[in-house]
């Protein structure tokens, strides 16, 4: 019995402590939700929110990190939207992702902020079209990464006298040299994104920019000879170069292989640059980059934007104030530099970046002028088609046999038909 009393006393104390803690509850600020929980991503978002709050001392915002990725964020967001407690603004992907929430009547039209920050002037056309739904902007871009560059280990290239390949044949030849020299030629990593992002280069080389958008809009089928040709080009070039056991590694493990001189090249989003740097592998000295064959003069990008759910006027105002400050050139700079990504606004000068960042910024500027800024296909497709495409391309990269090729094509084509019937496709 005495033990039970002791126990009750402990319980009581805990309850009291909890009550005290609860009463010390801070006043709630409008929240920005994102999934930049760690590393340079966190450093970037912290700096951005700091900067914006300094610009809006009367209307500061708070942040909430959703650990995980876009899937976890959607889950939290869905719960919050249904519960009537959405964040003031959140990190959203582009195109289909935005459209789902716009169609659901959940997002606030950001035309006013867009006009103030002169969105039509500072963002290239390829970017504008993936944040506007029905002609109105629902997301303001703040974070841009190119996904069509190949990183390479300079020491290995110099030792084997390889120059950065400019076309597919040179890439395959470089792979051969590397393999003969005892180095894995091209890194890749498991998961539904990385093989898909690699595949965009052969895809664009085969179907061109028009074809890329036609696949995105559902006009071009997965059972067309062009798409099959793209798969075969992918198989004969990149897939044939992939490092042994690539599918069992995470992207950072593959990046480690490049750092440790086990792998020569790695086609990855430009965030890899920040990772290399953190590992003491300096841009320009230890590694360099070249655009994947078939993408010279173009860029393929992955982007994050801030979206604002419909909510109380004060919250929406706070969110708009935050976005205004965050997407000013200074705001974008405060994020892009620590994070190691690009500012999506062309008003931000290239001089803010490091060696690799400058290269990316130049590619981006040139592609903007040539109107060759291509959004990540994954997000242009209806969400379920994009997700399936990622899985199927990974499957093909693991086993590029003819039977897999046929299955990949028939699976994707069946899904395209289903999505067409549901009118799920959008012409971006």
């Amino acid at each position, binding site marked *: 019995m005495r033990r039970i009393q002791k126990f009750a006393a402990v319980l009581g104390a805990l309850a009291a402590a*909890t009550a005290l803690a*609860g009463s010390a509850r801070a006043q709630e600020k409008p929240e920005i939700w994102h999934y930049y929980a760690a*590393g340079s991503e966190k450093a970037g978002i912290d700096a951005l929110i700091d900067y914006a709050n300094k610009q809006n001392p009367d209307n500061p915002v708070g942040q909430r990190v959703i650990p995980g990725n876009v899937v976890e964020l959607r889950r939290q967001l869905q*719960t919050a939207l*249904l*519960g009537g407690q959405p964040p003031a603004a959140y990190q959203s992907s582009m195109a289909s992702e935005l459209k789902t929430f716009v169609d659901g009547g959940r997002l606030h039209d950001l035309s006013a902020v867009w006009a103030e920050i002169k969105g039509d002037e500072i963002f290239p056309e390829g970017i504008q079209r993936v944040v506007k739904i029905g002609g109105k902007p629902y997301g303001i871009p703040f974070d841009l990464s190119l996904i069509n560059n190949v990183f390479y280990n300079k020491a290995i290239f110099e030792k084997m006298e390889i120059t950065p390949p400019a076309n597919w044949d040179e890439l395959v030849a470089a792979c051969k040299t590397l393999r003969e020299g005892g180095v894995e030629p091209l890194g890749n990593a498991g998961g539904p994104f990385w093989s898909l992002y690699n595949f965009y280069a052969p895809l664009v080389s085969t179907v061109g920019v028009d074809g890329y958008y036609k696949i995105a809009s559902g006009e071009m089928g997965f059972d067309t000879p062009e798409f099959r040709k793209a798969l075969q080009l992918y198989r004969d070039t990149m897939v044939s170069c992939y490092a042994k056991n690539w599918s069992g590694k*995470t992207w950072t493990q593959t990046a480690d292989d490049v*750092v*440790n001189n086990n792998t020569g090249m790695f086609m990855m989003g430009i965030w890899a640059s920040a990772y290399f740097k953190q*590992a003491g592998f300096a841009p320009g000295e230890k590694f360099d980059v070249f655009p994947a064959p078939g993408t010279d003069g173009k860029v393929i990008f992955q982007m994050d934007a801030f979206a604002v759910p419909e909510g109380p006027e004060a919250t929406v105002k706070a969110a708009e104030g935050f976005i205004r400050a965050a997407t000013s050139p200074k705001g974008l700079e405060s994020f892009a530099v620590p994070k190691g990504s690009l500012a999506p606004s062309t008003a931000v000068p290239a001089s803010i970046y490091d060696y690799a960042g400058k290269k990316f910024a130049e590619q981006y500027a040139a592609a903007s002028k040539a109107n060759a800024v291509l959004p990540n296909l994954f997000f242009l497709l209806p969400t379920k088609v994009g997700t399936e495409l990622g899985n199927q391309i990974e499957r093909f990269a693991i086993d590029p046999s003819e039977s897999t090729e046929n299955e990949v094509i028939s699976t994707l084509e069946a899904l395209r038909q289903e999505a067409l019937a549901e009118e799920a496709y959008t012409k971006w």
Partner: protein
Amino acid sequence: MSAQTINRRGPVPYTVAIVFALVFVAPLVLAILTSLKSPAEITRVLSVPTELYWQNYATAFERMGRSLLNSILITAPAVVLSIAIGCVAAYPLAFMHGRGGRFTYFVLLTGMLVPFQIVQIPLFFLIRSIGLYDTIGGLWLVHTAYAIPFCTFFMRNFFSSVPRSMYEAARIDGCSAASYFWRLLLPASASGLSALAIIQSRAIWNDLLFGMTLTSSDNARPATVAIAGFASSLQVEYGPLMAATLVSTVPVMLAFLIFQKSFVRGLLGGSGK
């Protein structure tokens, strides 16, 4: 644990124990080494850190912050409550042999089959509507409620192992059903209770899903959410992640060490079969 029992054991148990201990420890060594490596060294998985990089632990503590305290405030009462409710439900179910009892038991057990990922939207509405969203009290309630099937299952089995003759003898002595429960059955189940306490401490301490869904601020956010935060969308901060993980296992290990005493004692304080 008399000397003679030790003598009776040959080298086989030792060998088995040591081999498995090595296998069990190896991944942990990897975790410990990583928790002490600088970001540059983490690129080499099996290397030994050239110098101990305690910064990871500093980062871990800084980022976990208030959430460690929250986790303690959530876990300790929730463990007690969940075991209490499990015992309360298990007792009648262990002793009622009618169809009603069996049916109730069966229904309660189906709860174990529910995947928690799907409960969260209705759950969110529920917790918000009773004003417990983002409170530690809300998590007590949720952990207690969702522990019912398991704790009932666990305790019912343990109660069943206490000889029924004890129950009948007590009843003949005029002991009421309720006082049998408090005075005889619970003390006789010490080893079961402590095993369950350990399992529940671990389950509640490690909960991520409810913590993510039902908290939104430092008021109630548990440490697991902070730990998951070291794995971001693209990057994982392995050093601080491992440091935070090792730190966060300490309270569960403490619970283990505290409660294991009572199941080492086992039946000594029990039914006296």
